[in-house]
């Protein structure tokens, strides 16, 4: 078991390094750097000036070295420019070349400076992540119970009318990506001209013009039912169908297993068969799926935050990419990679924990 954990952790670190390196490589491509030079310096810089700027700001040299510096595995660069001032990765306004630390990378907590937010990456990411955290929490609270319930209900009697109805719902929901369901939900529930809101307003059932708010900008400061429902439902809808289908598949498989027949034929009632005998075995597979949904939830978050203008992590990622803010984009990637790997670990451990066949071997 210990060997397993050590191997798993080793693999995780290797994956993290590989992923961050790929991101670093792709964000620090020459054209991106040139673009950065022109935005930071001036748009009409000559080719030579651009080259000069790139080297002067520590973006020259081998990509491996730069990655090492950024990660904090190698000493930061130090250069003396033509004016004789010593500049370096770790030299900031608050320290001198002498007092500056040798290493200053992600591992040391120095994630660089965001050109978009005009403040350190770590600070800006912190608050955005908190905002997204609330969104994710709400999504999970809606999505997990709903999808498991749907899956179990439809899988427990395969082919029944309940099953057919719920399965159709699940299929429809997996066929509706966030940008589609978001648009439809807004048009239906948050538009003053079409959908339900004009009707409700004309009947005088709602005070404002629309039932729900079409944007979630205000939710940053104050989460309410009216501004948060649509974004949460938009993300959850897509996931519900997927997890419910997994649960259903797992449940139907378990319900046809021989040991369920054994239980039934020893006189256990149908309810007890489902709850005591089937459920635990049926939930092993969906548990992994739910955990592995996190990387994909990130996608939903990006789309929804863009669509509803909710300034969280996903919105930040879009801004970082759109504005060529390399440090911010790298920061976002580190967070994303971290989240993905941690959930994978939880999923592995949970799988082992839920499944006595593996736990005890």
């Amino acid at each position, binding site marked *: 078991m210990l060997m397993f954990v050590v191997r798993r952790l080793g693999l995780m670190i290797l994956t993290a390094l590989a992923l961050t390196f790929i991101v670093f490589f792709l964000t620090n491509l020459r054209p991106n750097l040139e673009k950065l030079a022109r935005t930071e310096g001036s748009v009409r810089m000559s080719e030579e000036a651009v080259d000069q700027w790139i080297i002067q700001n520590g973006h020259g040299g081998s990509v491996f070295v730069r990655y090492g510096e950024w990660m904090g595995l190698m000493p930061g660069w130090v250069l003396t420019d033509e004016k004789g001032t010593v500049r370096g990765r770790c030299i900031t306004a608050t320290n001198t070349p002498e007092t500056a630390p040798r290493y200053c990378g992600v591992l040391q907590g120095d994630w660089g400076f965001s050109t978009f937010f005009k403040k350190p990456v770590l600070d800006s990411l912190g608050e955005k992540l908190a905002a997204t955290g609330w969104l994710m929490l709400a999504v999970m609270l809606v999505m997990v119970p709903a999808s498991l319930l749907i899956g179990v209900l439809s899988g427990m009697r395969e082919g029944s009318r309940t099953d057919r109805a719920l399965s159709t719902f699940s299929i429809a929901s997996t066929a509706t990506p966030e940008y589609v369901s978001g648009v439809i939900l807004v048009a239906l529930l948050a538009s003053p001209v079409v959908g339900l809101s004009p009707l409700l307003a004309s009947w005088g059932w709602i005070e404002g013009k629309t039932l729900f708010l079409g944007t979630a900008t205000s939710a940053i400061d104050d989460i309410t039912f009216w501004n948060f429902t649509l974004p949460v439902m938009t993300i959850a809808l897509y996931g519900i169908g997927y997890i419910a289908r997994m649960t259903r598949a797992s449940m139907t498989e378990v319900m046809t297993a021989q040991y369920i*027949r054994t239980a039934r034929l*020893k006189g256990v009632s149908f309810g007890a068969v489902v709850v005591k005998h089937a459920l635990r075995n049926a939930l092993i597979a969906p548990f992994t799926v739910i955990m592995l949904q996190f990387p994909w939830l990130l996608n939903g978050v990006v789309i929804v935050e863009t669509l509803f203008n909710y300034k969280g992590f996903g919105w930040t990622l879009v801004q970082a990419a759109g504005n060529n803010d390399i440090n911010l984009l790298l920061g976002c990637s580190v967070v994303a990679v971290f989240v993905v790997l941690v959930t994978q670990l939880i999923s592995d451990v949970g799988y082992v924990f839920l499944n006595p066949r593996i736990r005890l071997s």
Partner: protein
Amino acid sequence: MTTSADTAWDPSKPILEIDHLSISFFTRLREIPAVMDFSCKVMAGEAMGLVGESGCGKSTVALAVMRDLGKNGRIVGGTIKFKGRDLTHMGEEELRHIRGSEIAMIYQEPMASLNPAMKIGAQLAEVPMIHQGMSRADAWALARQIVADVRLPDPDRIINAYPHQLSGGQQQRIVIAMALMSKPALLILDEPTTALDVTVEAGIVDLVKDLGKKYGTSMLFISHNLGLVMDVCNRICVMYSGEAVETGAVTEVFEEMRHPYTQALFRSIPLPGADKNARPLISIPGNFPLPHERPKGCNFGPRCDYFQSGRCDAGEIPMFPVPNSDRHETRCAKWQEIDWLAEPAKRAVKQKAPIGKVVLKMEDLKKYYSVSSGAFGGGLKKVVKANETLSFEAREGETLAIVGESGCGKSTFAKVLMGLETATSGSILLFDENVQSTPIQQRNTDTVSSVQMVFQNPFDTLNPSMTVGRQIIRALEIFKHGSSDEDRNRRMLELLDLVKLPRAFADRMPRQLSGGQKQRVGIARAFAGGAKVVVADEPVSALDVSVQAAVTDLLMDIQRENRTTLLFISHDLSIVRYLSDRVMVMYLGHVVEMGTTDQVFQPPYHPYTEALLSAVPIADTKVIRKRIVLEGDIPSAMNPPPGCPFQTRCRWKSQVPGGLCDREMPPVQVLEGGHNIKCHLSTEILQTMEPVIKMAAE
């Protein structure tokens, strides 16, 4: 009909009375009758055996008694009375009270029958908690006691274990314990030992018999194995294609059968005394009818020797009682006219093929695997000794049987011989060529085509998405046979003739063939390149009894014609005795005994062979068998015991002085006539051994 009927029930009446039961399955296209007009009675304390080939409806009857036929199955006629109460019209709630408490069932796959995520104790305790409203603590205590009753060691550990931590034999004992938790009046056993090894099966059968007596439980025992039914049951019901064809007391049916199907069945199974040359088996011609293609009148008619048109196919044939018997009945219109004692007419005596020069010689062959322990990979590497010092020779035209249970290394041996694996050490001499370290890719086409294999599972041996003809032609292409497509096509059709399949089968897909037909195609494919050595890995064990004989005979005929060396891997000693010239018995990678068939089947035995012989049920009332039941399960090849591999289960161990068996690998003793036994027992003790199987004096 209230539950008070339990107490009012008169024990002289039948426990279970099935009357004219008919069951159908409904598919989108049609209604498929699975069981027609089935009647039987089980009295208190009686064990009723239900015998028949796969698809005859015997399991359907069992499930109908449990009223668990699934969505598509429905009882369309007749009644099932349990203690006088009609089960067919009972509501769910009432059924629930009977299931598990009054009628319990034991299934074929013990592993699948136990919930993998629940402790054994919890699964057992659940039964009295539901039916008797017993408290949790009491129920667990009872569970512990019943676990001890089914003779499992260390019951305290077992009730706290999960199913996967037990071996197959232990799991089946747990399933039996579960069935006995509330002392049911009727126990239904559906092929309870089919998935187990023979020596483990013997233990389970003994247990079932003893517990039946101890608790006075009636049994409905479903099996395809006539020998097993004879061991366990006092009454038998033979089924064919959805109907009961003959029923009666076991001894009566076995000795004075009154239905042609029962007779044909007995003639097609290898009993002691059968011989491939002098008294070959007689297979039943034709195929089992598909449920929706059953003939009019007698279902067995088209395959019956006594068939008389206009009479057997006139209309429904009822069960006729046989006078002066113990409820012996038969569904044969001509049963009074048939001379039941006449010898079969068409038994063809065959010439024994001469045995030629040595074609295959193995010396000190060893095959070790290193596997990683633990489920997560990595960790310590362990060495599995799959084959240990294997030495033998096989001659042209000879049949060498390799006998052993799971984990004995017979499949590894086959892989090494075929070149799918290379030997760790030792030598294989094939037609005077050393091949022990030549993997199959480096063997030349001649060598490859002359050593071929016939596989066990007929449903797996053919590629499901290629036509039969195409699969044989591919073998011909690979063996570089013929110069054109026409050549190969012609040869393929000849091969189909050889295995007695119609030429039209060339364009069929494997799913359109029956199990026996697929196995024939597998044989044709193996002989495509004129194989000289054929390894047959349990080629008939997955087939029905009546088909087994036909496939075995086919294999023998081709062997006789081509003077092929046949290495016949099997765990079934009956068939081994019937067809082999020499026998090699393997246990945990070691050859424990080797000799001619007569030598191996007569004392002196290796203690393992002795137990194996005793464990195999024989469907012959004239055979007296000594019961030797081995303790425990076969040890894992990953973790073999020190010293003699068989010492953990050997009943002769005390006869060897000085605990030699625990410490040292026994030497190979060469007895008279080149009979090898790998055992520490002294020659004197070996000589005192008695035969396991004796024919009763007539």
